[in-house]
Each structure stands twice: as C-alpha cells, then as structure tokens.
C-alpha cells in the first residue's frame, strides 16, 4: 500500500505544474489553461488512488500513507506526510474544487489585461500549499505552508480581483493572516523549546500531556488565534467579507471552500490532541463565540447589498456551526463538524461559482442590479436556487446531514446553546430566499435588458463544471455513509484526548524513517 510516495506526489505535482504554467508565454493563454487543467486532473487521479487505498476500518492506523524525509536536522524538521480520514476528505475537496474553479474562470480574464498563465500558475501553487497543510504531519512543516499559501492568494485577490477595494482587501487578508501566523509561530517555538526540540506530530500527540497548565493555555491560544483568524470565527472574521467580495468568484470559492477549512481542520488536528486540557478550559468561550457568530453573521448577511459579500457572511455563520460541533466534544457533533467542512465547501463553492456566472454576465455583483433575472436565465437561476437551498441545509442536500449531526450532538451536551444555534437555520432560510427573490424573482429590472449577456443561459462549459458539484451535494445528501465512515475513526481518535484515554489510540503505521 505504501509503495508509491503518493502524498509527496500530491504536493509536488501541482507545485511543478505551477512552475511549468508560469513559464508559458503570455500569448499562449490556451496552452496555459489546458496545462493547468491537466495538472489538476492528475491531482484528482492521485487523490482517488489515495482514497481507494485508504483503510477505513475503525482500528486502522491514525495516519496512513506516511512518508518522512529529513530536511533540516538541527530543527527536527522533516518533510513528513500522513493522511487521516478528516484530511482525506479535505484533500478530496481541494482536489475536486480546484479544476472546477479553473473551469469557472476559464475565460474571465479575457476582458482584463492580466496574464492568464500567471493566474493559473497561482491557482496551482495555492492548491499545492493547501494540500500540503492537510498532509503535513510535522508542526513546523505545516506552519511553512500555512504561511506560504498567503502569497498566491494575496496576488489572486489583489491582482485578479474585482471592485475598487481589491488592494485593500488583499492587504487586509495578508496582514490578518500573517499576524495570526506569527502568534502561532511563537507558540510553535515555545512548544519546541519546551518539549526538547520535537516537531513531529505523531511524537507530540503520543507524548505525555504537558503538566504546566498555564503554558498549555498560552500555547493553545497561540495556535487557536491563528486558526480562528483563518477559519474565520467571530470576532476574527472582518477580513473575509472584504476578501471574498473582492476575489474573483472562482478564487473566492477556493478561499472560502477550502482555505478557510484549514483553520478548522488544524484545530482538530493540532489544538485538541496537543493541548487537551486547555481545549476544555476554553471550550465554553469558543462555543459562546460560535453561537454569536452563527446569529450575528446571519443577521449581517441579510443586510448585504453585494452578492459575494453576502455569501462570505453566510460562511461565517456556517463556521460558527463548525466551531460549535468541534467544541461540543460529542462524536456526533464532531463528525458533523467535519462533514460540515466538506459539505460547506461543496455548497458554498457552488454558490460562489454561480454568483461568479452572474457577476461576469452583469458586470456587477450588486443585488440592486438584478431583479427578475430568472426569466431569461432559467437554468442558471435554478442552479442558483439549488446552491442557496443547499447552503441553508435543506433536507436531501448534503449540508443537512452535517448540520443535523452538529445540532444533535450539541443538544445532548448543551441544550440552550443548541436551541440558540437552531435559530441560525431560520435566519439562513431568510437570507438565502430573500437573496434569491431580490435577484431572480419579482419585477424584471429594466436595466437587465440592456445587457445582452443576461440572455445567455448556462453554456456547455458552465454546465459541465456545476454538474459534479450538484451531483455530489445530492448524492451525499441521500447517502452520506461513505463520508461518515471515513471521518469517524479519526474523530474518535481526536476525541479520545478530550475524554482522557489517549492510550487507546491505534499504533502508528510504519515508524518514520528517522
């Protein structure tokens, strides 16, 4: 099973692809597009190989497909990869959304005089960095990619974004993330100094828990703030509406659909097993923040006038649910949170992409510029409604399963919180349906008739790229069992630390090379 270095390939292929695409001349835009798409296709194939080779049994090793190569010996820094069920889902999401995002922005750059090869190279570099954060099993290695991915995203927003505030948004995004990352860096260094120079994740979680409670609390906060900014959790969220509003829609789909999940993924991967006591100390506060986030962001979303900002705010509300699911510490809620991360990527990714279709046709993402648009764009309106309904967790769509699991799990532990969070569902219905009504239904905005593109319904390319997302949302809505099977062992392992029985962990597979 471990013959091929599949995980190394997952990081290396898009990285090399990025270099190749970047070296293509500006004039050969089509060559760059197809090369980038082919590279992301190879990533999908490798991901499929990993998914088929993965051992889903309950007692299987936590991290699988492990690889380890010494990099900087003085720091105990290895290039070491490993994948668990949670990471596998995230990798699949990344690998799946990237080619879709590429297809979605296939011709968007024709209107602006920006380099097409550079755009696709940046997307591939971003994909490589995001995959690396999910696969890294060395804390410092994780940090490297956690920071490095800011660079491609910064240029994608700042250089290829839309709207007058794109530079402001890009800089704000970069500085917020960098600040969070630097807090994490201090915590990483302090952790390293205190445990005798170990960065290897497996060694760290198997070690005795830290005796010094105060230190553990500080380290937890250092990591958590970085991840909470990345996710983003209320009240660290203010960069997301700006970034999401300014980024090209396909990039926003990657930003909110995948990159933000790194925050919640890392909380599960690093905060819970490494600082279990501190996690429990802060859990009530974080649950409180999550619930406020669910309600506050939903209210703000209702008031938005820009479609992309609206979708960004809905995401903040959804991240509240994920936070609630993780920190309620029940198997159902944590499993639900991980599924939520995956399903939210599908649903919000689709929503952002459809909004992108609209914005490129109309030349604006302002809600007021639409109205009655469904008359000339029936199919697009249908997909838009579908994506909206999925994101409000309509039963039958995948997000319903995860939202139900989160609330169900939270309810068994903390009823008032679960009841409050449930209000978020009602608000979600309000912002989604009202958004749809204002843009697609009602009296037709006469200005729309002056825009010929608004009479062009979904093209073949657009149909091809939304189809997999629609199928996945429906498929996992009716049959979520494969996802649950993949996630549950890893979630159980993680929660063992909170219940205080980490000795029941499965043994590590294939002791690393060093």
């Amino acid at each position, binding site marked *: 099973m471990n013959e091929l270095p599949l995980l190394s390939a997952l990081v290396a292929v898009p990285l090399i692809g990025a270099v190749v695409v970047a070296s293509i001349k500006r004039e050969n835009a089509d060559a760059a597009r197809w090369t980038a798409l082919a590279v992301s296709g190879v990533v999908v194939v490798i991901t499929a190989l990993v998914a088929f080779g993965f051992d889903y049994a309950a007692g299987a090793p936590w991290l699988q497909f492990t690889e380890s190569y010494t*990099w*900087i*010996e*003085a*720091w105990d820094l290895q290039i070491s990869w490993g994948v668990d069920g949670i990471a596998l889902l995230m990798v699949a999401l990344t690998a799946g959304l990237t080619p879709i995002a590429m297809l979605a922005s296939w011709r968007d750059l024709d209107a602006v005089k920006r380099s097409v090869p550079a755009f696709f190279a940046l997307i591939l570099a971003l994909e490589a960095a995001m995959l690396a954060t999910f696969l890294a099993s060395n804390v410092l290695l994780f*940090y*490297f*990619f956690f*920071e*490095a991915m*800011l*660079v491609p995203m910064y*240029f994608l927003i*700042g*250089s290829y974004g839309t709207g007058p505030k*794109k*530079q402001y948004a*890009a*800089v704000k995004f*970069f*500085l917020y993330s*960098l*600040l969070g990352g*630097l*807090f994490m*860096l*201090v915590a990483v*260094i*302090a952790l*390293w*100094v205190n445990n005798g120079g170990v960065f290897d994740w497996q060694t760290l979680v198997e070690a005795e828990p830290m005796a010094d409670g105060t230190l553990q609390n500080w380290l937890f906060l250092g990591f958590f703030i970085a991840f909470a900014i990345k996710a983003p959790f209320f009240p660290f969220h203010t960069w997301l509406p700006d970034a999401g509003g300014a980024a090209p829609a396909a990039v926003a789909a990657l930003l909110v659909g995948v990159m933000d999940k790194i925050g919640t993924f890392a909380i599960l991967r690093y905060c819970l097993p490494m600082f279990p006591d501190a996690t429990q100390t802060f859990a009530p506060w974080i649950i409180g923040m999550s619930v406020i986030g669910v309600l506050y962001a939903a209210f703000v979303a209702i008031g938005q006038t820009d479609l992309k900002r609206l979708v960004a705010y809905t995401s903040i509300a959804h991240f509240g649910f994920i936070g609630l699911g993780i920190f309620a510490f029940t198997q159902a809620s944590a499993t639900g949170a991980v599924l939520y991360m995956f399903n939210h990527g599908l649903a919000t990714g689709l929503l952002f992409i459809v909004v992108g279709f609209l914005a490129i046709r109309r030349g604006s993402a302002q809600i007021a510029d639409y109205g009655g648009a469904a008359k000339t764009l029936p199919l697009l309106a249908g997909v838009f409604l579908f994506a909206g309904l999925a994101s409000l967790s309509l039963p039958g769509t995948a997000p319903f399963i995860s939202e139900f699991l989160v609330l169900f799990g939270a309810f068994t532990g903390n009823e008032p919180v679960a009841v409050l969070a449930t209000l978020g569902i009602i608000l979600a219905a309000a912002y989604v349906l009202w958004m749809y009504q204002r843009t697609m239904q009602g009296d037709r905005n006469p200005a729309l008739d002056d825009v010929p593109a608004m009479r062009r319904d979904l093209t073949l390319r657009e149909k091809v790229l939304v189809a997999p997302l629609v199928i996945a949302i429906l498929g996992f809505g009716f049959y979520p069992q494969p996802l649950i099977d993949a996630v549950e062992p890893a979630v159980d392992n993680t929660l063992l630390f909170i219940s205080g029985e980490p000795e029941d962990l499965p043994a590590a597979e294939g002791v690393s090379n060093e």
Partner: protein
Amino acid sequence: MNEAQGLQIDWAGLAPMIIVFAAAFGGLLVEATVPRARRLPVQVALAVAALAAAFIAVVLNSGKNAAAFAIEGTGLGSVVLDGPGLFLQGTLAILAIVAVLLLAERRTTRGGDFVAEAAVVADSAADRAQQREDGATEIFPLTLFAVGGMMMFVTAGDLLTMFVALEMLSLPLYLLCGLAKRRRLISQEAALKYFLLGAFASAFYVYGMAMLYGFAGTVDLAGINRAGVSSGQPRMFLYLGVAMIAVALLFKAAAVPFHMWTPDVYTGAPTPVTALMAACVKVAAFGGLLRVFNVGLASSAWDWHLILTIIAVATMIGGAIFAVTQRNIKRLLAYSSIANAGYLLVGVIALGDAVGQTMFYLAAYGFTVIAAFAVVSLVRDGDEEATHLARWAGLGKKSPATAVVFTVLMLALAGLPFTSGFTAKFSLFAAALQADELGLVIVGVVSSAILAFPYLKVVVLLWLNEPAPDAPTVNLPSPMAGTVVAAGVAATILLGVAPGPLLDIVDQASVFLNT
C-alpha cells in the same frame, strides 16, 4: 629584542587582515601608477582577489581557538581568533566581495555613481571634466580599509584594539558617503552627519574605555569580565563604562535612540555604499556587541540587562512603526534595518544561547539587504535613481523580472517561510526563548507583523498599481549589479530552503574564547 622576546605571532591567523590591508595599500599605489583609463578593472580585480584570498585564509584558519599574539604561551587579548570571530570575518569577506561588485557597476550611469572630488562646484568646467572621466576608483582602497577594519573589529579581544578597528572602519565610510555624483548635497550632508555623530560616538567609546579601565585595571575583555565579580573599585565606574561603550556600539548598530543618523545617511550615501553599510557594518557592529557583552560583560549581566532590553524593544517597535510611513525606498530600508537591529539585539541579550543564531541572522540579512539595495540602484529615472516609492508603481508590468526579485526580497525581509528571513528569525527567536526572553520574542513578533505592512506596500506598488507613463526604467543588463542581485537572491532562497549546512557551521562556531 627585549620585551618582544618570546612573543609568538600567529601569522596565518592574521593573514586575512594582512591580505586586505596590503591590498588596500596596493590600491593606493595603483591610483598613483596605473593610467586612469585602466584603473577600474585593475582596482576591482585587486579588491575581489584580495577579499577572496582573505576568505580562503579564514577558511584555513577554521577551528582555531586562540589569541593571535602570545607571550610564552599566554595569549594576549588584542586579536582573538575564535569561532565567532572567524565566522564573522568570513561573512564579512563574502559580503564585501558582493558589495565591491556593486561599487564597480558602471553601466547604470556613465562613469558610475561616484566622483573623485565631490567638493568641486557642480556643473563647473572642472566638474564636467571629472564627470566625463571613468573616475573615482579610490573608492576601492577605501572600501578595503573599511573592510579590514571590520575584520579586525570582530576579532578584537581588548577595548583598545577594538577602538583602533572602530576608527579604521569608520573613517573610510564617512568619506565614501560623500562621494555621490548625483544629489551631491544630501550625500555630503549625510557624510557630515555621519562623521559628526560618529565622532561623538568614538568619544563616548574612549570615555567608556577609560571608566572600564579604572574599574578593572585592564582593557582586556576577559579581564573586565573577571573584574565584574572581583574588582574592589566602585561599581559606578563599571556602569558608566558599560553605558558609554554601549552607546558607541549601539550607534554603529543603529539602535533606537542612537539611530537618528541612519535614515539620512542611508538615503544620502551613494546606494552601493549604503548596501555596504547595511550589510557589512551591521555584521561588524553586532560582532563587536556580541563579543563585548559575551566576553567582557557577561558577569555583570544583571546590571545592563534591563536597559538593553528597553533599547531592544524601542528599536524593534520604533523601527517598524517609522518604516510604515516612509515614502522613499531607501529610507524604508533604513528603518527596516533599524528594526532588524532590534531583533539582533535580542540575540545579544540572550548571550551565549544565541550567539550562533545571531550570526546566522547577520549573514542571512546581509545578503538580502545587499540585493535589495542593488535593485534600488538599478531602478532609474534617466541618470538618477528613482527612490521615491510612487515612482515604483507598476514596475511589475514594465520589468517583471526585477519586480519578482524585489518581491522575493521583500517577502524574505517580512520573514515568510522558504526564505532566509524565516529561518533566521525562527532560529533567533527560538534561541531567545531558550534564554527565557519570552517578552522580547513577543515584541519581536509584533514588530515583524507591523513591519510586514511597509514591505507589503511595496509589493502592492510593484504589482497592483498602474505604471506612470514616464515610469522609471530598469537598467539591464548591468553585469556587476546583476551578479550582486543574483547572488543575494540565491543566498536568500538557499538559506531559506536548505539552511542546514550553515546552521551546523554557526553551531560549531558559536563559542567565544574566554567565556
């Protein structure tokens, strides 16, 4: 032969300095004998060859851990060849080679950035005559004298030798600052400012040395350290001495509040000289600080720890905040160099735990900053450098290669992973945490976050803004400056991706003799 009887001299150990000084004198002879038209290649070849030879001599000395002068087996303090001293000498030699190449660039503007007689009235007949000439080759011997002084500074084991070295490295630099061909007024103002303040600093140094001599009865650093525990003299002499010596050294290192000269001098001096100062003088100044505090003042750490901590905090925060508001790329880099001096001070305060990491930081920062100034010297409005940031807008469109390079350098200065900026900050802060300096590390991190903003502002300008119709041109190909940029960027990335070998070297070379 009386006192010198039994004096043993380690000639091989002194060879690097002897080579550099000899080449400097040789350069003076070249000025006197070789025809003007052929001086430039001869001088550059001589300087580079001498520095390369000095570097090889340093490498051959590696592993030495003794005084260069000894009487009947007992080492004298004056010149000490130990791990840190040798490592810093080697670093200085390499960085100086790079800086000399930048000084030698003549393609950017006819005749180069320097004039031989800056005092000649601008645009007078005499001035036009000297502008036409491929002149001002005396900068190379001057540079060699300064670099020789720096090499001596980092190996000086007593305060007196250190003072000689300090003057040796400073005087040529004062002169070099004033030799700009363009914007002569601010260049000369910079030279005067640097000279006056530097003279003050030297005076402080001599007073401080006298105080410490009164306290310890010796100018030998190891002796001062012993006296820190055992001397019966009033401790006030120690305090005054430490304070005054520290003022002089922190002045050279550009720490707040002794930084006032830095932005003006960095801006006014010809850019290649600024690069030399930002890279090499930084190495020398911190080499001296490391040695004085580790060897001479470790035993009195309690007495200076608080005040130096305050200075480090002020330097980190002050440098970063002032950098935010800058509109001139050279001033921005000057304030960034002040903030970086703050990070390096953290390494000095952490004493023995962080010597190796501080040296690593010096090497990493030196290469990055030299390349950054080299790029600055290439971006030009006609004959003049376009140093105002607004003129850099949209450079990514007109000269993508230059913009990519400068972006990498900015990201390295901001400390992004996969660049030397990250490895250097990481190891330095880790060492400081090991020495229980958590507070300083947190301030350092906050300062880095603030400092990221001005760097990012430059990146925004390069890529996301539209260029002006009369945007500056990038002077390519410029073989010399191009080599400098390539070397600096290569080192920046190499030390970020594969820092292992250099980390091992600094680890082995991190112990001072007599600590």
